[in-house]
């Protein structure tokens, strides 16, 4: 089975992610030898609807080191790149320590944890906003 793609957000413009956690997680990713994607700031990419987010959302299983799952889901939706609930795990660097966050990111298994959609059959609602409800 294909390993999940790892995406790391550096939250460049704010101090909301503890700096020590960010640095430790990034260093462990570099040391792991595993391939990973890294972005300076997910918010910025979402605001400009960067096509990289659509490519990542479509890449298969995805582990995202960033902030709260509800926020990350909303950011990808805002970029017109809804995340698949059954293929996405968000590792919250705002609440986890570096050890726990790194372990979750580098683990082979995926633990999907996006919040559910509004409509009952979540599988068909496909994670989110109407495409038209987002910035152009």
């Amino acid at each position: 089975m294909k390993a999940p793609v790892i995406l790391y957000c550096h939250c460049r413009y704010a101090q909301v992610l503890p700096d020590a956690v960010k640095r430790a997680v990034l260093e462990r990713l570099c040391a792991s030898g595993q391939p990973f994607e890294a972005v300076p700031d997910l918010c910025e990419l979402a605001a400009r609807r960067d096509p990289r987010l659509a490519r990542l959302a479509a890449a298969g299983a995805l582990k995202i080191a960033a902030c709260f799952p509800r926020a990350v889901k909303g950011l990808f939706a805002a970029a017109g790149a809804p995340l698949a609930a059954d293929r996405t795990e968000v590792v919250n660097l705002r609440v986890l320590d570096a050890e726990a966050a790194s372990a979750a990111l580098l683990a082979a298994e995926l633990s999907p944890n996006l919040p559910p959609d509004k409509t009952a059959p979540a599988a068909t609602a496909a994670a989110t906003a109407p495409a038209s409800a987002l910035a152009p």
Partner: protein
Amino acid sequence: MNPPLPHLVLRDGNGAPPPVGERFAAVLALLEQGFTLTCAGPEPAPVPPTEAPDAMLLDWPALCGADPAARAAELAAPARAREAADARPWLPWFPVIDYARCTHCMQCLSFCLFGVYGADADKHLRVEHPDQCKTNCPACSRVCPEAAIMFPKYKAGPINGDAVQDADLQREKMKIDISALLGGDVYALLRARSERARSRFSKERDADKALAERQKCLAQIAADVPPEVLMSLPSPEEIARRAEEAAARARAARQG
């Protein structure tokens, strides 16, 4: 909005990869400059770089060395030179809608004076102009009765995207009038409106308690809005005009 930098694909290339510490320093410096990266390592890239039309392939040895920050700045220099023409660097602060909670009531559209929100043909709320949002101002999230507006860089939940609790919903259900931001006598305003508030809330809760909650919420908004935003508000007449315009757009969106 800030122009994007090229996407960099970092790969081993020929020879032994540099030590972990050097690779980490290079990645950190590139992220601080604003590059998006694929650290391909010995394995194939997670997302094929050929799918990123602006991707630049770089070998680790070309990046690592004595001064990774200077090397990263050098790589970013051409884009930064173009960026210099852009007068105002933008900090990515804007509302993110939780569409699992949003009811498209358009209260946020009515409230925002800066044209951040809009509605589409299906009467769905949309964030139309994120770059017009005022940095560090989360006021519109306070007027959302469903706690559906997030600012991921905000300090506290549920505005930062943390799970919404019942207590949050009780607090957010107080709709705040834009005139509260005018800097006038808020409590006189509240007293003048108390009769309306009483009739509005009498069916569902004790009126005095509702008024107290409204006052508390109002104080929270006033505390949340950065002074720079308050200072940049236009004249009361202009605010009234914009508020009416926004309210009209919200009505039109609701009614179709």
